[in-house]
């Protein structure tokens, strides 16, 4: 997979600027500093982190590996947005397990992450598609944004299909409308947009547009699998962004191995995007449960610590 066919939208900095970036002592002191935060619900929150070099290098589809503190674990998070002017990258996080819940408490504006490495993985292949459906379910809404924007900048007609449980959990609607030609909002309870899952949205889009070149779907594995099945009868190329458990994120442990067709690939260096019609989702979902016991125990311990701290506070 060659990276050289990416549209070069970012103006080239001069050597002096970038050397200055590398050498600037102030930059080093504010390393991985969180400069903005927004909470979209009580489980989903957005962090904007200062990293000028990464803001320049990031491309849609890439991810970072984060450690929130020295005793933490390495957590892969897709880059939801990047801004070269501000020198920041944006991560949208859902507080599910111990680490993300802890981050929800500790990652405030002005604090810093302990480790942030990236942008990892191959940039999403934007290619020559003329009409694209970008599908984001739940947390997948954030990482699909840079892809939708890139397709649009490349001249494609972009239809976004976004799924949320209910209206109060919707975020980035305006952001998407600014880069898409059409937006199909889906809610489980019908409180806004159409009532249904993103697959219903995909079906609507396919009915209306018989000339869709490509579908890109990001979200929980169950949703990506369903999206791929929705497009399979129509033979539409469908790319998915896989999210296996990762440790190093740089291609040396094989923990993120996925089965694509008859091959074994590492999501961190061979992906994270793969052909959704070839991915073995059953294998991915089984492997995502590798540490379910430890994860449950860690959340319980964390909740217990919070309860104890709560009791101690006046």
């Amino acid at each position, binding site marked *: 997979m060659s990276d050289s066919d990416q549209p070069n939208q970012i103006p080239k*900095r*001069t050597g002096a600027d970038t050397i200055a970036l590398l050498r600037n002592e102030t930059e080093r002191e504010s390393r991985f500093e969180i400069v903005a935060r927004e909470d979209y619900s009580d489980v989903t929150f957005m962090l904007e982190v200062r990293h000028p070099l990464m803001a320049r290098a990031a491309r849609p589809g890439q991810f970072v590996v984060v450690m929130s503190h020295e005793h933490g674990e390495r957590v892969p998070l897709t880059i939801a947005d990047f801004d070269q002017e501000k020198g920041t990258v944006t991560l949208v996080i859902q507080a599910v397990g111990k680490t993300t819940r802890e981050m929800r408490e500790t990652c405030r504006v002005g604090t810093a992450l302990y480790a942030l490495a990236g942008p990892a993985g191959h940039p999403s292949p934007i290619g020559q598609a003329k009409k694209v459906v970008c599908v984001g379910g739940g947390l997948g809404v954030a990482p699909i944004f840079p892809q939708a924007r890139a397709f649009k900048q490349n001249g494609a007609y972009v239809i976004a299909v976004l799924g949320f449980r209910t209206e109060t959990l919707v975020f980035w609607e305006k952001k998407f409308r600014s880069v898409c030609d059409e937006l199909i909002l889906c809610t489980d309870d019908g409180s806004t947009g159409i009532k249904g899952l993103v697959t219903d949205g995909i079906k609507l889009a396919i009915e209306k547009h018989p000339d869709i070149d490509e579908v890109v779907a990001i979200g929980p594995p169950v949703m990506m699998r369903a999206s791929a099945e929705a497009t399979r009868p129509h033979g539409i190329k469908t790319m998915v962004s896989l999210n296996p458990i990762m440790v190093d994120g*740089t291609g040396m442990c*094989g923990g993120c191995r996925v089965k694509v067709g008859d091959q074994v690939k590492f999501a961190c260096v061979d992906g994270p995007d793969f052909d959704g019609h070839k991915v073995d989702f059953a294998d991915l979902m089984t492997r995502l*449960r590798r540490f379910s016991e430890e994860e449950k125990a860690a959340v319980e*311990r964390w909740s217990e610590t919070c309860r104890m701290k709560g009791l101690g506070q006046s």
Partner: protein
Amino acid sequence: MSKKKTIRTIPQQRTPAHEQAPAERVRNFSEVSHAYTDAEAQLESQRCLQCADPVCIAGCPVAIDIPRFIEKISDKDYRGAYDVITRTNLLPAVCGRVCPQENQCEGVCTVADTLEPVAIGRLERFVGDRAIAEGWKNLPYIEPNGFRVGIVGSGPAGVACAADMAKAGCDVTVFEAFHQPGGVLRYGIPDFRLPNEVVDAEIENLKRLGVKFECNTIVGRLFTIEQMIDELGFHAVFIGTGAGYPTMLGIPGDSLNNVLSANELLTRCNLMRAKEFPNFDTPVPLGERVAVVGAGNTAMDAMRVCLRLGAAKVHCIYRRSRAEAPARAEEIQHAEEEGIEFHWLTNPIEILDDGKGNVRGMRCIRMELGAPDESGRRRPVPVPGSEFEFETDQVVFAIGTNANPIIGQTSKLKLNKKGYIETDENLATSMAGVFAGGDIVTGAATVIEAMGAGRTAARHMRTYLGIRDPSLSYDGDKDIQFGINPRERNFVRLRVK
């Protein structure tokens, strides 16, 4: 005038190093081998014959002046011994512990003709540890020459190259993808063989030399090799990114939940400190009956880590025999002492599912040795009809690795068929000013070979940059490098695009 030493007058027995007893050490991550005491080091140093023609030096991949440093130990001049070693080897506390001395210096020691070889490795470690304890640093004043050198990867190759370039006066930055430097020294080799404190101390020495470490930097992704030369102002680059991409088993059931590569196990345990879970957040799978496939150093490390994590029983499955096992002799011996059961001439053919996606066993087949393959070792062939089932709840595989793909994916460097970076005899790559060494060039090898490669590349990088070592005399055509005779009056360093 002291009496000349002969094979009969030196202490006849190789001085043993105290080791933790197997039963005790399988439950902790403290070092297995203790360092020599002063008295033990003294005694062992007497065994060196100070040969007029020391073959041990040629046996060392970085040509340490072994008889000289051993003589200093005899004279109780430990600082002097450290000075001798650090003229060529910058990490004696590391190499003394992890070099396969039996294949290198000790393997050719003259004393070994009659008795057991001089314990050169243990003596080197003794000096290295004393240096750390005493805080000795060999830091001469170095005149900066204005050249910026970028090193990709903070493992043994990168760190050795960095030290040499720093000593030559360059402004050196080492980039590391992980959040802590050291590469395989930190994530791969467990604490009971090479404590992370030793790695920290040696890295600290390099920082004092002026070497800068930038962690959390994935070169190739954050910026490319080309950008390092074209935009970031580096005059020369060394790539030491290693070969960590594990080879998969490729048998049915190899993606079950409790099947993992030794690299994953070791990274979780050593780098992410999973052995201290839940104080550290990263977990590591803990089986009761673990099967490790492979018999190299990585496999040995994985087996012994599993024991210390609490496995009741650990098995080694290897398709060849003990004689062909590639691991360091001392590691196999320690592993056997620790109660690991070895199944030689056995190959796994299927990993069995318990119905819930976990491992319940492995089907294996017995092997026998046939004709030699390209490596010269006899090729194992399956014995028909010898399949059997083996109960296990966790499988760890250490059957080889491949080049880390990131640099190959993100730069126009020429790679060979297997994905390793192609270099000439000067370790120069297809891109001017970019050199490479260690596992990313040769495939998986040892720490000392990587360090040797880092130092060789540094020598050629200095030539490329036009940094002349005033102590070296140039003569004749054999000093023409890149078509330039250094004696020419207007000697200019050419950058070829």
